[in-house]
């Protein structure tokens, strides 16, 4: 087990090193001059040169990468061109909002997906199953900004039940926190939930047809016991993966939903950093997303070994 863990962590670190080179190179390929953008339209050449020298962008690329990667190892991701604050503090400022929304969305997604997917699988081609298919097709294909604006107009505008957007920390105003969380979490949760519903349905169906389930049934176990111990437990495995992937996606920020609901998460920050050609911030944000995906994959793999001992090697 320890060997397996070490091997997986080692792999993750190698991937991360590769990703850091890619991130740096890709950001450089983005067209558009950050210095010009920072200065706005009205400026002269001396001002331009002064800022160029100050930002270190006049150095050779390799040297820029080495100093960036070196500092990143110590947790220093540099200073944002745009705001002059450190990248780590800017990211840390966004993390609570992102975590809140991601976890709430996954909760909404699972609440939708697990019962719906299971019921669909238990009664294939029934009315419930067909409705579930339609609903999840709708959830996957409807644009999230459209759903978001409709929800704002209905629940914040016409009905006036909920605020139209924004974010307050839980510690400050629990009621306000919950009120502001509902609409964005429903939008992102519906999208993720629609994806997960299909996985749940197919994995439960597959588990239902497995040999050991038939054996269990033949042994005369009660239906409920068969379902809980032999079907659900096996169906859980792919669910862990797809939920992990969805969570990683949500943690790297859901840009459109965050913008419509004025939700100050990482998606917004990443978009702003692209628009402003804020290299240090952009590199920091992408590197963070890479870490999120790597860590979640690692956790998923470890969970697998806990659920299914056969995988432990």
């Amino acid at each position, binding site marked *: 087990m320890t060997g397996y863990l070490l091997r997986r962590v080692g792999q993750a670190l190698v991937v991360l090193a590769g990703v850091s080179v890619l991130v740096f190179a890709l950001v450089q390929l983005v067209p558009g*001059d950050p210095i010009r*953008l920072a200065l706005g339209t009205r400026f002269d050449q001396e001002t331009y040169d002064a800022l160029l020298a100050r930002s270190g962008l006049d150095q050779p690329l390799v040297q820029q990468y080495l100093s960036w990667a070196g500092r990143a190892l110590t947790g220093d991701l540099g200073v944002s061109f745009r705001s002059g604050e450190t990248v780590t503090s800017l990211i840390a400022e966004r993390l609570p909002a992102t975590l809140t929304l991601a976890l709430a969305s996954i909760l909404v997604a699972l609440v939708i997906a697990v019962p719906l997917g299971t019921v669909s699988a238990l009664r294939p081609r029934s009315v419930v199953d067909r409705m579930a298919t339609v609903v999840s097709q709708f959830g996957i294909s409807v644009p999230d900004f459209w759903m978001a604006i409709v929800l704002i107009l209905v629940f914040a505008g016409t009905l006036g039940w909920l605020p139209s957007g924004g974010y307050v920390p839980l510690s400050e105003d629990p009621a306000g926190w919950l009120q502001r969380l509902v609409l964005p979490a429903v939008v992102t949760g519906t999208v993720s939930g629609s994806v997960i519903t299909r996985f749940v349905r197919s994995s439960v169906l597959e588990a239902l047809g497995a040999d050991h389930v038939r054996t269990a049934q033949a042994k005369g176990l009660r239906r409920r016991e068969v379902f809980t111990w032999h079907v659900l437990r096996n169906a859980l495995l792919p669910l862990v993966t797809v939920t992990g992937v969805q969570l990683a996606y949500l943690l790297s920020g859901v840009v459109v939903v965050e913008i419509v609901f004025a939700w100050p998460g990482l998606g917004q920050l990443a978009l702003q950093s692209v628009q402003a050609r804020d290299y240090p911030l952009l590199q920091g944000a992408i590197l963070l997303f890479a870490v999120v995906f790597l860590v979640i994959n690692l956790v998923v793999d470890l969970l697998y070994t806990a659920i299914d001992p056969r995988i432990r090697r």
Partner: protein
Amino acid sequence: MRSSKRALPLVAAGVLALGACGGGGEAVDTGAGGGGGGEGGTLVAAVAAQPDQFDPHVTTAYPSFQVLENVYDTLVVPNAEDLTMEASLAESWETSEDGLTWTFTLRDGVTFHDGSEFDSADVVYSYNRIIDEELSNSFRFANVAAVEAPDPQTVVIRLSQPTPNLLERIGAFKGMAILPENAAEDLDLTTEANGTGPFRLESSDASSTVLTAYADHWGGAPSVGGVEFRYITEPAAALTALQNGEVQWTDNVPPQQIEPLAGDDTVELQTTPSVDYWYMSMNYARPPFDDRDVRRAISFAIDREAVAEAAWFGAAQANQTAIPEDSFFHYDYAPFQRDPEQARQLLQQAGVQTPLTMGLMVTDEFPETVTAAQVIASQLGEVGIEVQIETLDFATWLDRQGQGDFDAFYLGWLGNLDPAAYYQEQHQTDGPNNYQGYSNPQVDQLLQAGSTETDQAARKQIYDQAAQLIVDDVSYLYLYNPDVVQAWAPGLSGYQIRADKAINFETVELP
């Protein structure tokens, strides 16, 4: 003075709660000095974007200036009504005979938010900081030879040549703010502020920026206890927030809602012509756009009213010169009425084979340019010019503009006050913003003369002549001046919508 700022979100909530009951805010870094501020509660204003930072001398972002307008003061300031310059931190000023020395007498009894006294050393420090560190506004001091402080109440600015628009240069916006001496060493100016304005910067995070009233402001304490700028990017969401009472003010109004909202009594909507202008420009280094007849043909082919209507849903005035109607320097000159026949003739005269393909560079940073370009494309199509619209993000757009890699582009100049700002850098040969590559010795000479002429009437005449040449040559193809559009809760009073889009909440009163 330097304080930890990671605890700001919590402080913000405390301030909001306290502000609402009229008590004193617990300041982050200056002790409990904010007590006794305005009587009212907090005004919540929905703005489109987060300020990038709060150093007025460094930032160039409008979202930052929306906030800084209320925090810092300048020596002089545009009058809210007609944008002529009037006293602010400087009470009065005089100009020497030769126009080379300006002497400012400073206001007495002004204090910064930390309680320290304001005097001439602060002005010298602030201006020298901009000049010496070559910060983003250093071009505004191009003519300044020295800034001196003979005594605490007096500032002398020595110039290398007469500069009639000096007041505009130092007062047009808060980029020329007066900071306390050594502010850059004592504070982290990107996140902290210490100004002389009506509000102090209390806190700022990823969802809002909070200001509290500064009771000891030289102009009197503001009427509200504070202002919260909440960032709502999506215009439909901002409008909904205004309509259901979450916010009391916004400048983020969907253009297509301007007309319907005029008859809606749940929202007060106001518009005023802005000092901005939008234009198209063609590359003089790329034939056939170096040919005056071709540019004039294109100018004749465009229906400016239709472009303005498409871009702004009617909230814009078509214009063929840069300066809008309400300005003293407006020049009523409009030689181009849509005339496709004449356009075709001019193209023929220039020996241009149609269809002629023309790239038109626009940016999604300003969505109206994308819409307007579609109208322009269809109008030019009628005279045999095939427009290829290139929609770029702003960084790429700026980059290609700087490298001269375009046939034509479409953009606006925002926040201009003085005629020099409207014309000089854009149309003078080798002007820093003359990306189209225009060069007309007569225009150069006029713009040079205009920049040093001190008599207002004579100055207007000079700029009228320059404008006429610029329009006739189609250095810029001027299209329209858009309106400033803002909306607020019915009953909100004491607020003045301004042509320069400065947002000042000093005298605002909640409903």
